């Protein structure tokens, strides 16, 4: 097990290096906007652009620039780990990402809990009662939830429930998270984003669980459980769902990893200053160091979560050993 983890961690490092190289290549080697011009602000003089070019070494060969960026990521030089400087605000990227991390974590955690609480009962019931009214209604709704883009759903939610502009002004809306105070204040501000973000995931998970459970209920060991004379409830929950839910752990791990890297659409629609919103702003303004930083962060979460899931599997499925 330990050897397996070490081997996987080594791969994580290789993978992150490759991702860094790819983002660097896409944004600096390929034809793109001139970073010096971006940093110089509006209507800069050619002298200013030239001095910025000198200051940040933008005329150096690309491999040198890449190495300099790697130095910004690794704690081996004097200025420590900072992921470079934002072109826009001229501040270090890393502290800004860490500053925005709590909002993204809070958004993700709440949404995950919410969609699991919705998806597991619905997926289970509609698998057990295939073809029933409840099954057809929930699976129909699920299809809608999957098809509706988050920004559309988000805007509809704001239109309906935003306490300032909504038809039914019930909930804190766009931008409320920044102003809200305390745990419950912040949580209140996230009710709408949580619901919107959880909708599509709840739908996907409910359908996934339903499909898995329908297959699982055909397994021989379910017949054995019934032949033992167990109550149907126990057969479904302890024998059926227990087996059908295991593959969902994989899905969940990757989705959490993706969301921790920033729920770009949700954070943008609801104006939550998380990593996703940070990335969105950076993309809009072509702020290369910030884009690179957020991409690297997102990749980091995904590979770490997938490693975590693989390790977790050894504990939830006794057949898996490393």
């Amino acid at each position: 097990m330990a050897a397996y983890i070490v081997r996987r961690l080594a791969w994580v490092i290789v993978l992150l290096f490759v991702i860094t190289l790819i983002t660097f290549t896409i944004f600096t080697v390929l034809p793109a906007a001139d970073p010096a011009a971006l940093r110089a602000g509006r209507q800069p003089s050619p002298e200013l652009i030239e001095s910025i070019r000198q200051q940040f070494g933008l005329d150096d060969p690309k491999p040198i620039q890449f190495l300099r960026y790697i130095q910004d990521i690794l704690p081996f030089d004097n200025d420590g780990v900072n992921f470079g400087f934002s072109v826009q605000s001229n501040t270090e990227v890393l502290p800004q990402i860490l500053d925005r991390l709590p909002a993204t974590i809070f958004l993700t955690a709440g949404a995950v809990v919410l969609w699991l609480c919705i998806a597991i009962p619905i997926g289970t019931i509609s698998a057990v009662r295939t073809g029933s009214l409840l099954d057809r209604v929930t699976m129909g709704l699920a299809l809608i939830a999957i098809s509706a883009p988050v920004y559309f759903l988000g805007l509809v939610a704001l239109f309906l429930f935003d306490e300032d502009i909504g038809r039914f002004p019930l909930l804190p809306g766009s931008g409320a998270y920044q102003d809200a105070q305390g745990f419950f204040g912040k949580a209140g501000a996230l009710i709408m984003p949580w619901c919107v973000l959880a909708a599509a995931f709840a739908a996907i998970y409910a359908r996934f669980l339903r499909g898995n459970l329908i297959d699982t209920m055909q397994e021989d060991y379910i017949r054995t459980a019934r032949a033992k004379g167990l109550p149907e409830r126990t057969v479904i929950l302890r024998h059926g769902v227990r087996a059908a839910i295991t593959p969902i752990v994989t899905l969940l791990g990757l989705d959490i990893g993706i969301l921790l890297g920033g729920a770009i659409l949700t954070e943008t629609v609801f104006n939550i200053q998380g990593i996703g919103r940070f990335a969105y702003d950076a993309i809009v303004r072509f702020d290369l160091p910030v884009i690179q930083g957020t991409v690297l962060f997102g990749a980091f979460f995904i590979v770490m979560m997938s490693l975590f899931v693989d390790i977790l599997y050894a504990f939830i499925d006794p057949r898996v050993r490393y």
Partner: protein
Amino acid sequence: MAAPLLEVSDLRVHFETEDGLVKAVDGISYTVDRGETLGIVGESGSGKSVSSLTVMGLTRARNAKISGTVRFDGRDLLAASDDDLRQVRGNEIAMIFQDPLSSLHPFYKVGDQIVEAIRSHKDVSKAQAYDRAVEMLGLVGIPEPRNRAGAYPHEFSGGMRQRAMIAMALANDPKLLIADEPTTALDVTVQAQILELIERLQSEFDTAVVVITHDLGVVAEMADEIAVMYAGRIVEEGAADTIFNAPEHPYTWGLLSSIPRMDAPRGDELVPIQGRPPSLIHLPGGCSFHPRCPYVRDAHRRIDPELQPVDGDPRHEVACLLSSGTRRKLWAELEAGVKPADARRDVIEEGAA
């Protein structure tokens, strides 16, 4: 004489499907006495598994139409509520299945799965149930049972898994054990051990056993009575000796000549039964075996034979339109090495006269 432990009469199990009505079981009757062993033999799709699952109440589904009666120990199981039936399952009637790996839950330890079976029927503590589980595992011949009870099914060999299934089935000391193809998925060397084990435990626990198999060899040693099923019906039933030594249904002959025999001359070919089992949706008219029967005559395509006692043996019943005399002659010829195809002209025509 006391009432039989299990009395199935005129059991029909039909499933409505998109393709039509599947007559999986179409009017079968049999009885099993306490401590007795009944072998139900037939090809896949003959309805042998469905009939036993129905006894357990495991075919209850929206598309299943079940009729007839199943009397078990004085109660009508078909009329019983789901909850009453659940009390019987795993407690008074237990079942083991074909593939012991897929029949055990992969995520739970073997001992815990047996504990679950015990505690769903007996009001005992976990520790007591676990002791019983370990005791049962020892009884079915698993070495170091206390250790092995903590292992997962995938850590057992195929034979060990089936032993564990048997331990689980017998943990509540059931009156009836239904074994559905208990050795089919196992290595040949392990098959005999498992059959021996079932026989030994049967006499120890005084359990009645229903063995379902496609392989007459499996029931040869252990069954007292044998019922041969074809296309949802019983076509021949009698004492095991009779079925092996004086079978009267051409389908049974086919089954017998398709298993290797120690006393057959070396080099003798096994004779498979021609054709395939019929569709249970569109059964052939008349005798449902007629398309595959080497001795078929015109009338057999129209008349549906009933299960009737043969001359001189009321316990031996056969559903065949040939006369008992003709059947005995044909069997004697088969035993003498005459191929079914050669028998057609002389004997059948004689029977027709």
